[in-house]
């Protein structure tokens, strides 16, 4: 009951407020254009007619939620999955490079973190650069990677996955370094009294201690990875993927298409974060973690 009162009611009421505000703004923003249309057609519409028309324009300034929902439903469930207008197809294109990049990024991040924790020289020389590189707008590099790799004949999945890798390995590295260093001196001393070797300390103490940190940073990384894949689709000239749908919608002013692509991207993001969260909980339980 408490979660119902403390969470569900406030969240749903605020979401409801957002939807109502959305409708109000849809009417307000679409009215000028509708007035213009009416004047050209020499029609005078009453207030309620005007509202009805503003909510059903083919290329509205702000599409109403139900227009987006209908478009999303049509493009998701009613189209054949291999059609390039299908949102499932486009989401899959984006998802595949996201996952590939995320897998590489996580692996790379873990390797770098292990290196930083074990080699003092790397810690002192590489770590400042990793932190500094987070202040750099990496995403700006995306179009160059795509076009340059395309010029040497590498196109399709790999360049997009590279951008995702780039974006997702920073959070994993930083989180893993923190996690591998999280065992207290007391625990390290205990391993020492057991005469544990370096690799034993690593596998039996440092790795288990770092798992919660790993999954927390993987949640950030998977979201960043999706952003990387979407932005990576922009400069390829809108072939396929959620980013391509956004760009095509922007070119042809298909605002409803843009919004439903956005919805699709958001759903993919939420699902990815959720899957990583669930995986984290399963691993935690399998390792014998108790709920705090």
């Amino acid at each position, binding site marked *: 009951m408490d979660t119902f009162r403390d969470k569900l009611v406030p*969240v749903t009421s*605020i979401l409801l407020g957002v939807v109502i505000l959305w409708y109000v703004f849809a009417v307000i923003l679409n009215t000028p254009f509708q007035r213009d249309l009416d004047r050209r057609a020499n029609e005078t519409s009453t207030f309620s007619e005007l509202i009805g028309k503003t909510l059903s324009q083919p290329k509205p300034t702000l599409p109403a939620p139900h227009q987006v929902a209908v478009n999303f439903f049509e493009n998701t469930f009613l189209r054949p999955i291999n059609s390039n207008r299908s949102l499932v197809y486009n989401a899959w294109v984006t998802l595949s490079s996201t996952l590939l990049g995320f897998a590489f990024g996580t692996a790379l991040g873990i390797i770098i973190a292990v290196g930083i924790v074990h080699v003092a020289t790397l810690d*002192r020389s590489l770590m400042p650069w990793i932190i500094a590189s987070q202040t750099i707008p990496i995403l*700006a590099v995306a179009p160059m990677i795509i*076009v340059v790799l395309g010029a*040497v004949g590498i196109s399709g999945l790999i360049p997009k996955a590279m951008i995702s890798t780039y974006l997702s390995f920073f959070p994993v590295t930083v989180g893993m370094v923190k996690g591998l260093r999280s065992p207290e001196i007391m625990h390290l001393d205990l391993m020492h009294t057991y005469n544990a070797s370096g690799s034993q300390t690593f596998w039996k103490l440092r790795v288990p201690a770092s798992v919660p940190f790993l999954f927390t940073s993987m949640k950030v990384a998977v979201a960043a990875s999706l952003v990387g894949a979407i932005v990576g689709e922009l400069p390829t000239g809108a072939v396929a993927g959620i980013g391509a749908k*956004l760009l095509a919608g922007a070119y042809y002013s298909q605002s409803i298409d*843009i919004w439903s692509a956005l919805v699709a*991207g958001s759903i993919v993001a939420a699902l990815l974060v959720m899957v990583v969260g669930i995986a984290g909980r399963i691993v935690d339980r399998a390792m014998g973690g108790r709920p705090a």
Partner: protein
Amino acid sequence: MNWLKPSWQAVLAIVLCLIAIALGAPSKPEAAALADPTASFNYPYLGTKGLMFGLAVLAALISMVRIPPLAEAVVLFIGAHVVAWLLISGIAGFEGTALAPYFLLLAAAWLLGWRCVAVLSSLRPLDSSARTALRLIIPAIFGAWILIIWEAVTRGAGIPFILLPPPSAIGLRIANSLPVLGADVRQTIFKAVLFGYVVGSGAGFITAILADRVPFLRRGLLPIGNMVSALPIIGVAPIMVMWFGFDWQSKAAVVIIMTFFPMLVNTVAGLAASGHMERDLMRTYASGYWPTLIKLRLPAAAPFIFNALKINSTLALIGAIVAEFFGTPVVGMGFRISTEVGRMNIDMVWAEIAVAALAGSVFYGVVALVERAVTFWHPSVRGG
């Protein structure tokens, strides 16, 4: 053998040098000249080849003698960088002709540089200013070696300019197109980013205070805010471009939306950071909501707020640059990147990225400096 202390980097560097000498000519013209002694060829490293190998081996040998670590580091530093400099300046005019010994010598110099960093990072000076200097020098050497290897490999192997221009060409391009870069920075950073950053962070902050005042709002907004931070918000860029036109206003709008939620979530978390004891103390002083907020809870929330400001400084730049991919007037960093990529002027793209990186670091640095000044009482600042 007490005067000797071998290190694997130095030994390996010497071995690499010996292999390189055994392999012979470090570049194709020289190999051609050796094959045909009668013809006169002009080839790189006419006079400096012996010097380079000698210097590398000498530095490696000296570094293994038991001398003070600082002297060892200086010897290695000079040896590694002079060799690298001779190597890179020698290849000028003969790009793309390097053979295996060239790369072996580069690897040897890099190993010496690594040894230098390793020696430096094992130093534990007592003086605090020396420690600070060391903390700056070590990553600086590492960064310099990335540039050196980049330069030496792109020039030595003759990697096509379109694929990866050497850093020197990028530096030259920056120096030659300062007015264009300046105009782009003015359009993207001083108009779109700063305006969006201030408005977005400010709106997030005010909403957080509001949410703090109304618990119902907080319970509803926090889960939504947390979820939104995982969404690809950058996707609203085409919509904003449709609504607000091609100029900087649409980019500022994207930046506002991107910076709003991190600020909201962090500020709400920060406002809960003050302890029970302190709040009770304020209550015994009969302090109302606003005095408690200003005198206790906002200062306690400052580290969280600055964390959000730091996150936002990067997000704002990304938002503005990516939004420009969807349409701009003919100026701006994102516009320049996407058009110059299309024209295969990769050095200009790199120049723009270098400027963006510099701007991002400066932006972040300014926020961090303000943080140090404002949260001077916080343990993480006081202790450092």
